[in-house]
Structure formats: C-alpha cells, structure tokens
C-alpha cells in the first residue's frame, strides 16, 4: 500500500475502476473455444483409453487406476497379472509338445496314426478338442506339471491354439470388461431412446458392480435416465449433487441439459 506517490496511487485507482470487461459475443466465443478444447482433450483421452481397452485388459487397468474411488494400484496390478496369462497360456504348452510327443506318446498315438492315416485330418479338425480343452486351460495354474502328468490325452498344438484365446478368464480383467460391456449396452439403450431397458441394465450394473470402476459413469447415466423418465425435485437435487461432486465429469454437460433445464 505504502511507498507510492499520490499521483501513482490515483492512476492505479482510476485504471482499476476502468477495468475492461468482455462483451457478450467475445465472451461466448472464448467460452465455446474453451469447451471445445476441453472436449478435444477428453476425446483424445477416450480414444487412448479405447485403444488400450482394445489391446486388452491393460487398458481397463489404467482406467481403474485413474478413477479415484478405487483401491486402484492393487486392482491395476491384479488386472495386469490376470491379463498376462491368457496370452501365455496357449504358448506355454506349445513348445514342449513337439518334443513330448515323440517321447511320451509314441507307443499310444503314433501307432494308430500309422494304422489309420485318416485320423490326421480329423485331428486337425474338431474331434480331439473335447480332450484337449481341459489341459489347455490348466497350464495357467500348473504349467510344468500339465504336460508330464497327463500323457494319455496328448494336446496337438495346432488344435489347441485355436479355441483358447477366445476364452475369457474369470479374473478381475474379465469383470472389468463385463462391467464396461454392460454399461455400454445401457448407454446404447439410452441413445436408442429405450429408457426403460436402459434403467433395467443400469440397475443390473448397480446390483452386480456396486463399487465398480465405472460406478460414477453408471450413476451419471442412471441420473440422465431418471431425469428423462420422471423428472422431479429429487432428480434435480441428485443432479446438483452429482455436478458438485464431479464438476469436470464428461457427463456434466449432459446432466445439466437433461436435469437442470
């Protein structure tokens, strides 16, 4: 305050009183540009997340670690841990089998092959799958014991590799994937104006994943559905509460438009 001459102080005060304000069009333009920049950022983030999701469970792991309400590092680690084996599982039994087959299976398998050469095409096809599916899944838990302990049903690697990668593993990764899929179905239902169906799907989501990684998104979607189906002071209050709790959620704008008009 002190240390300035009267003239300096007068010029400052006049300058402060005379401060410019943004006129309406300019303000609107800046606001629009800001929201565009924000939308662009979240779109880029969403695309990156989608790419990671497409690559596998790792994507969901990072998403889970970015949602604050989660015990994230543990979950992400669990997802990573569960995400790796399905890739390795079909590969693990493959290398030993060419070696194992001549050693272990020769007395039982090779001879029938020589006796009846028409088995070979059948083997590559569907027949042995019933016997090979089980040992193919097991190596995940005891990868070393499997080829040695079960010499009788020899897994031909070509047949085994085909059905395995499609099998979802029942770990946290698949839980997250399921959660995301369920939410996606609900969002599609909202987009198609099937609001009652969307509400049922979201209720199912809440029942199955009450504390899921996508709980916030689920709650936002449920709020939008409720506001559309039965707007009331209660939904307005819920919308205000949601906006206060998640001001920068990508859903905020939609909630505001739907619930607080």
């Amino acid at each position, binding site marked *: 305050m002190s240390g300035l001459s009267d003239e300096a102080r007068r010029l400052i005060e006049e300058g402060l009183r005379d401060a410019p304000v943004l006129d309406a069009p300019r303000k609107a333009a*800046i606001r629009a540009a800001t929201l565009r920049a924000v939308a662009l950022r979240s779109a880029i983030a969403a695309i990156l997340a989608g790419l990671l999701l497409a690559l596998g469970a790792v994507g969901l792991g990072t998403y889970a670690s970015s949602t604050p309400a989660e015990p994230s590092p543990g979950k992400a680690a669990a997802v990573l841990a569960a995400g790796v084996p399905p890739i390795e599982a079909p590969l693990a039994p493959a290398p030993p089998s060419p070696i194992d087959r001549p050693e272990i299976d020769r007395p039982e398998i090779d001879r029938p092959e020589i006796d009846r050469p028409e088995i070979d095409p059948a083997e590559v096809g569907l027949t042995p799958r019933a016997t090979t599916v089980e040992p193919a899944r097991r190596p995940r838990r005891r990868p070393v014991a499997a080829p040695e302990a079960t010499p009788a049903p020899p897994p031909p690697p070509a047949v085994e590799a085909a059905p395995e990668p499609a099998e979802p593993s029942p770990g946290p990764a698949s839980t997250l994937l399921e959660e995301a899929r369920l939410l996606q179905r609900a969002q599609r239902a909202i987009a198609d104006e099937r609001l009652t169906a969307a509400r049922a799907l979201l209720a199912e989501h809440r029942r199955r994943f009450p504390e899921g990684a996508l709980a916030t998104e689920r709650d936002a979607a449920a709020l939008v559905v409720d506001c559309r189906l039965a707007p009331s002071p209660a939904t307005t209050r819920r919308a205000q509460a949601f906006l206060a709790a998640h001001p920068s959620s990508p859903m905020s704008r939609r909630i505001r438009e739907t619930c607080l008009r």
Partner: protein
Amino acid sequence: MGAFDSVMDRLRGAHSAGSVSHSPAVTAGDRASPPLTFEEVWEGYADFVFAVLLRLGVPRASVDDAVQEVFVVVHRRLSTVHGPDVLRSWLYGVCVRVTKSHLRKERFWSWAKPLEGILVPAKQWTDAHTERREAFDVLLSLLEGMPAERRHVFVLVELEERSVPEVAELLGCNVNTAYSRLRLARADFERAVKRRQAAEGSIA
C-alpha cells in the same frame, strides 16, 4: 450427500478455512464447502481473469487465448478447489502461470515479428471487440516497461491487494525476493509516472 447449497449461496459466502495456495495438495484439504462448478466460475470470474491477465502483461493480441487456457485448467482442476476464497487465490496462480507461458512464447517467436502480417495475419486488439478504456490503457502503459517478474509482484500486491507472502507463494519465490522485487517495481512505476507527467507538461 450432505448440504449442497444453492449456487448463489456458495458464490456469496462459504468461507473455507485453510492456507491460500494454488497447489492442489493444499487446496484439497479444505473441505469446508463443496467445489464450484465450471459454469459458476465462468459466470463469476471470466471478466476478472481477463483483466488480471492484461494487467499481468499478456499481450492484448493473445489475451483471448490466455483466458481460454486459464479456463481449460479451471475445468480440469476445479474439483480440487473448495470455496470462493481459495478459488480467487488459486485463479491468480493459474493466471500467473499462463501469463508466464505466453510471455515465453512471445519471446520465442519474437524473431518472426517482422513477418507478422506477411505470412500470418496480424492479430489485433480492435475497438470492435472491446471498447478502449482510457484510464486502463494509461495504467497498462505505465506497467509496460517493467520486467515481468517485478510486474507480477507489483500487480498482485498493489493492484490486486494480495499480501506479499501470499504473492511469494503464488510466484514460487522467496518472501524477501518478493519484497525486493516490489521495491524495485515501485521505483519503476514512479519513474514511469514522472515520465508521463513530464510528457504531459511538455505537450501543455
């Protein structure tokens, strides 16, 4: 979900205790009032941010971009700020950082200045956009020649009436450094005022 007051109630009042800081680690601790929404901050503070950026020295040609940058940060980080008191201080911090980055960009592209208007259209602060304010322009012209770091301290202390320790924290410098910059800045400002008086005298 407890008490979520109305928008106006929160803009008016709710005093959140706690230190003033722009760092989310500190503001996150102040839970006295729920976070404001982006719209509330935009409506309440767009003009404020605009004026502060100009006083801090963002060139007029790029002040719109700077306002936008500030509000992108607001959108991203608002949930960590609780209460209007902390918000104001936090906004000063964001404005200072955005100003510094704009000045850096300006310096970096200074070599291309002569090409402006040839290669790229020159941006202009036009009267059509915002009416010119005489007293405000005089104030800006007095701040014009001041080195940026002195100007920031001077503006935040003398114009925005923040305390020197708070300004030191906002600018990330030592309190003594802030005092020393303030002293030099006051001298700079007085010299500019004298020059202006002399010029007016010679015209008259």
